[in-house]
């Protein structure tokens, strides 16, 4: 720690940061544009000018850019200095020479960093009397609006998009003051993180397109802390809502998880909550026809069903712990299913078991960024856990640090660090069946079937620690590759192994665990990350239950009277025959869901559930971090949380357990399930009070609260209330930058209305939240078993001339269940095709081929992808056949176009 003098005030500062950071951390209002806490400094905008003095006797001083000046002990600087102020006001005035005065119609208005900085510098008179330049805007696809005239040329967009996220299709064009930031031609931005441009751009050049259609000012929306439901990474989000609808999702900073960025699936996937097809009333089948009924009628019908025999519940990896636990309470643990078929179920259970038993760190995303060697073993994380893929990409920047240290360049000097790292070897080693977005920046890529990759993994572990079993019958090239990768990993200090469930291959997980164990024994500090598929896969694994196969057996044996399926579209899990067999062996089917699925249409009773945006609950991420989401919209009855429905159903038969709010159910769950004993600490409960008050969910400036429904009724509506959240439903309540990270409903402090105000909520910039980070890691205190090798080494992969192993091709857009129902995501989903590395005789690119999937013939166009290994075919899960989810052997038949 150093001490610096800011306008005479002694402030503590870290020596590894720059003066801008130090000033912001000291609470000073120093404006900036091009600097970003995650992107570092490049000194382009010149907005952060301060006066620096060489010593107490220096009265003249020198104007420096705070963001480009390292902190040293005893630095004397002035923000208030007249010259510095004049210069900063000048910078905004220069920016304004071309910036349109269109704030009233600009979606950024009210949360615009440029507005904040303009006010902060005091620039309020237009003196430039010449014309402004104008640009043509581009159609950038369904996510992003483009309004280039508002550009202030800070270069943040391209620095984020290209340097940080690896995007290629956004660039800076032109020169001098004729700059243009856009694509080569109109078209959707390709990078998976394009939506972050909305938050990265300090003004209204890139704005949220779906949001602009249901636009509301930031100050007119309610916010609630939430957790992304579209993969298992558990990115923290804020859901903004108004008038009972979700308007948008933005990033909520979590130091260890998503930090400043979300993937596009997470940002734009919320559209399913507003789908017109959403069930809004209980539907009961009468004479074979579903009709809307009251809650009471629905519950009466359920009571009648319950008399018909045992109730079995099928839970869901996309539902909260609380909802699953409530369902389990309805049926009893012995009749509660995880909703996963046997292989998926076993794999899900394997993951926490391996993470607990392996003496490697189970890393957070932020931890992963500092790995110095990364082995990705058989998982395309860029699509199964996109934000995790972005974290892995950051290891490249770290690879430049040694060169930067030699040249004594601080790590936040972004451009210099990247330049010095030009020749730094990439730490990424990517072994996957199909190409991934990380390939272009990887040191090694290798394509092979999952079994083959697992064998390589075993071989690598053996080469690191000879007591680990080796894979027999490796080819010469495989031996060389294993040797090379093993020595690369062993040479690292903080190696990271990443595997996952994408290809439902247990051997990959075992091999990954062996490598991690071997690396630990070899004295490195390894980390092991295992990627699960759904937002609550890990929660379900910790909760436990029966595999679906057991439910099927119970049904066949006539031991199910009523089957309650909660937030689980079984058509995505079971093929048509199996599902038909199951349903026809069950007298009564009850479905609780917030989306319309084939199952809600055939259910005897379909109950409308609340989506994540309308309920509170807990999800456990793939890292074992339990995180709470809180309702942004308080739903109108009869829509209610799945767990409330489960409770209602329970109470048709018995009075206990009786949970009336979320905290009660959490307490019961913590009591009942050892692995979840600490989930209560994921977030403060509903009784949390800040300065004796609830936390407000609406900004103090909300306008027209009583007028928004004036076209319907001029009477004030009572505000909806919820016992599940410590957030008040209105602008009444407390709000400070010290509030717990788990409760932050929006970011705003005096003078800072944009997301940049986040700086004020952190203990230090880029560090934990002042009020503590959200969530609680559940696997950390797990007992560490002695290292034990896994020996299930698969046989080499084999295939015939027409015989392929069909692997699920997960995609960023279109294969994840909920986001696929969101219109902007659906617009980006490409049609299904069959990708083949080698084309059997008679098949050419574009010809149609038929395969049998989930028991049914499916015809797909063939795409030749020479990057795929022989014998492997790829097809998106759930798109061609709903239930196709895991590798299967297929034979191809040519189909002649009709």
């Amino acid at each position: 720690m150093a001490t610096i003098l800011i306008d005479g005030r002694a402030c503590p500062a870290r020596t590894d940061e720059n003066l801008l950071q130090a000033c912001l951390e000291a609470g000073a209002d120093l404006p900036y544009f091009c600097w970003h806490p995650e992107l570092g400094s490049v000194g382009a905008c010149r907005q952060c000018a301060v006066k620096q003095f060489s010593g107490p006797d220096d009265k003249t001083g020198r104007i420096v850019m705070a963001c480009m000046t390292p902190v040293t002990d005893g630095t004397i600087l002035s923000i208030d200095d007249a010259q510095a102020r004049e210069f900063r006001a000048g910078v905004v005035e220069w920016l304004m020479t071309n910036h349109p005065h269109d704030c009233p119609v600009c979606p950024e208005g009210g949360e615009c960093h440029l507005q904040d900085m303009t006010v902060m510098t005091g620039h309020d008179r237009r003196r430039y009397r010449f014309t402004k330049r104008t640009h043509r805007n581009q159609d950038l696809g369904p996510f992003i609006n483009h309004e280039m005239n508002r550009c202030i040329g800070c270069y943040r967009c391209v620095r984020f998009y290209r340097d940080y996220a690896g995007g290629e299709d956004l660039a800076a064009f032109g020169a001098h003051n004729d700059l243009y930031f856009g694509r080569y031609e109109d078209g959707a931005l390709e990078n998976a993180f394009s939506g972050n441009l909305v938050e990265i751009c300090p003004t209204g050049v890139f704005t949220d397109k779906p949001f602009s259609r249901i636009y509301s000012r930031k100050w007119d929306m309610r916010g609630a802390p939430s957790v992304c439901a579209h993969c298992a990474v558990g990115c923290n989000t804020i859901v903004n809502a108004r008038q009972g609808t979700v308007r948008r999702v933005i990033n909520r900073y979590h130091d260890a998880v998503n930090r400043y960025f979300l993937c596009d699936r997470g940002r734009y996937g919320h559209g399913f909550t507003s789908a017109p097809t959403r069930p809004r009333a209980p539907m009961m089948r009468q004479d074979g026809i579903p009709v809307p009924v009251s809650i009471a009628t629905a519950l009466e019908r359920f009571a009648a069903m319950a008399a018909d025999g045992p109730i079995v519940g099928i839970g869901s990896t996309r539902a909260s712990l609380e909802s699953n636990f409530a369902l389990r309470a309805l049926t009893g643990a012995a009749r509660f299913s995880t909703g996963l078929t046997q292989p998926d179920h076993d794999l899900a259970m394997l993951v926490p078991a391996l993470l607990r038993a392996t003496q490697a760190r189970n890393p957070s995303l932020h931890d992963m960024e500092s790995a110095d060697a990364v082995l990705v073993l058989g998982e395309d994380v860029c699509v199964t856990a996109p934000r995790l893929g972005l974290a892995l990409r950051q290891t490249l920047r770290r690879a430049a640090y040694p060169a930067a240290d030699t040249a004594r360049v601080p790590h936040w000097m972004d451009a210099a660090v990247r330049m010095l790292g030009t020749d730094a070897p990439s730490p990424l080693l990517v072994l996957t069946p199909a190409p991934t977005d990380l390939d272009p920046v990887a040191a090694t890529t290798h394509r092979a079937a999952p079994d083959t990759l697992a064998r390589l993994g075993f071989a690598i572990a053996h080469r690191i620690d000879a007591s680990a079993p080796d894979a027999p019958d490796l080819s010469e090239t495989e031996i060389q590759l294993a040797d090379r990768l093993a020595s690369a990993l062993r040479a690292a200090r903080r190696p990271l192994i990443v595997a996952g469930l994408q290809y439902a291959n247990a051997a990959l997980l075992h091999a990954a665990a062996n490598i991690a164990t071997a690396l630990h024994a070899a004295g490195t500090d390894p980390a092991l990350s295992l990627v699960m598929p759904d937002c609550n896969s890990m929660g379900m694994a910790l909760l436990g239950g029966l595999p679906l196969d057991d439910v099927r057996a119970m049904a066949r044996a006539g031991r199910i009277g009523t089957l309650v399926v909660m937030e689980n579209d079984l058509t995505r899990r079971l093929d048509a025959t199996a599902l038909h067999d199951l349903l026809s062996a069950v007298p009564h089917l009850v479905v609780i869901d917030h989306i319309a699925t084939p199952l809600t249409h055939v259910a005897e009773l379909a109950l409308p559930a609340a989506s994540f945006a309308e309920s509170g609950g807990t999800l456990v991420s793939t890292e074992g971090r339990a995180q709470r989401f809180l309702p942004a919209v308080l739903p109108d009855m009869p829509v209610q949380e799945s767990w409330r429905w489960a409770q209602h159903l329970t109470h048709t038969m018995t009075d206990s357990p009786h949970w009336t709010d979320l905290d009660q159910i959490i307490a019961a769950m913590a009591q009942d399930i050892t692995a979840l004993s600490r989930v209560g600490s994921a977030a403060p409960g509903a009784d949390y009070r800040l300065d004796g008050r609830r936390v407000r969910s609406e900004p103090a400036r909300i306008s027209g609260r009583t007028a928004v429904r004036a076209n319907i009724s001029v009477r004030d509506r009572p505000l909806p209330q919820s016992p599940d959240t410590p957030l008040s439903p209105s602008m009444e309540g407390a709000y400070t930058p010290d509030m717990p990270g788990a409760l932050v409903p929006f970011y705003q402090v005096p003078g800072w209305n944009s997301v940049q105000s986040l700086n004020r909520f952190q203990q230090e910039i880029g560090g934990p939240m002042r009020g503590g980070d959200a969530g609680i890691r559940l696997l950390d205190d797990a007992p560490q078993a002695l290292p034990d090798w896994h020996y299930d080494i698969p046989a080499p992969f084999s295939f015939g001339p027409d015989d392929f192993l069909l692997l699920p091709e997960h995609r960023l857009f279109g294969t994840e269940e909920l986001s696929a129902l969101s219109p902007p995501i659906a617009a980006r989903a490409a049609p299904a095709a069959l990708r083949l590395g080698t084309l059997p005789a008679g098949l050419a690119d574009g010809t149609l081929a038929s395969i049998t999937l989930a028991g049914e013939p499916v015809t797909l166009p063939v795409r030749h992808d020479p990057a795929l290994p022989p014998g492997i075919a790829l097809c998106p899960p759930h798109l061609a056949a709903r239930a196709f989810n895991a590798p299967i052997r297929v034979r191809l038949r040519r189909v002649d176009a009709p």
Partner: protein
Amino acid sequence: MSTADTPLPAELRARIADLARTEHQPRAASVSALTMVQERFGWVSDAHLLETASLLGMSPADLDGIATYFNLIFRRPVGRHVIMLCDSVSCWIMGRDTVCARLQARLGIRPGETTPDGAVTLLPIVCLGHCDHAPAMLVDRTLHGDLDAETAERLADGLRGAAS
């Protein structure tokens, strides 16, 4: 009309690929590659930009960001001859504005434009390092100095005559 849509000749592609290989990173060849394309076709068309980008393993946006940055890469068609008339200070003092006005009148175009017959494009250019012979202009690859309105007009006439 122009050959802007025809693929790059194999020999040119090979030269670009060779150059990219000898550089520390292929992108280092971007300006040279664009220049080579331009020397052949007069300008860099969209089709040629795409082709060049793929030869260099760059995205079209990336390469176009470079093409549009530099003064000497033309992303719009130019005439068969390009007149670049210096507009920097020494030439300005020595009367380049008069020369420019006469050239404009003679050619019937303004700076940045091409004569309707496609013969001549007139462009301003920064100091050509020929200040001791100001005003100066570069006609294609040849430097001309000590211009006055008449010599400039004669040169322009010659270009149109020779071109038609």
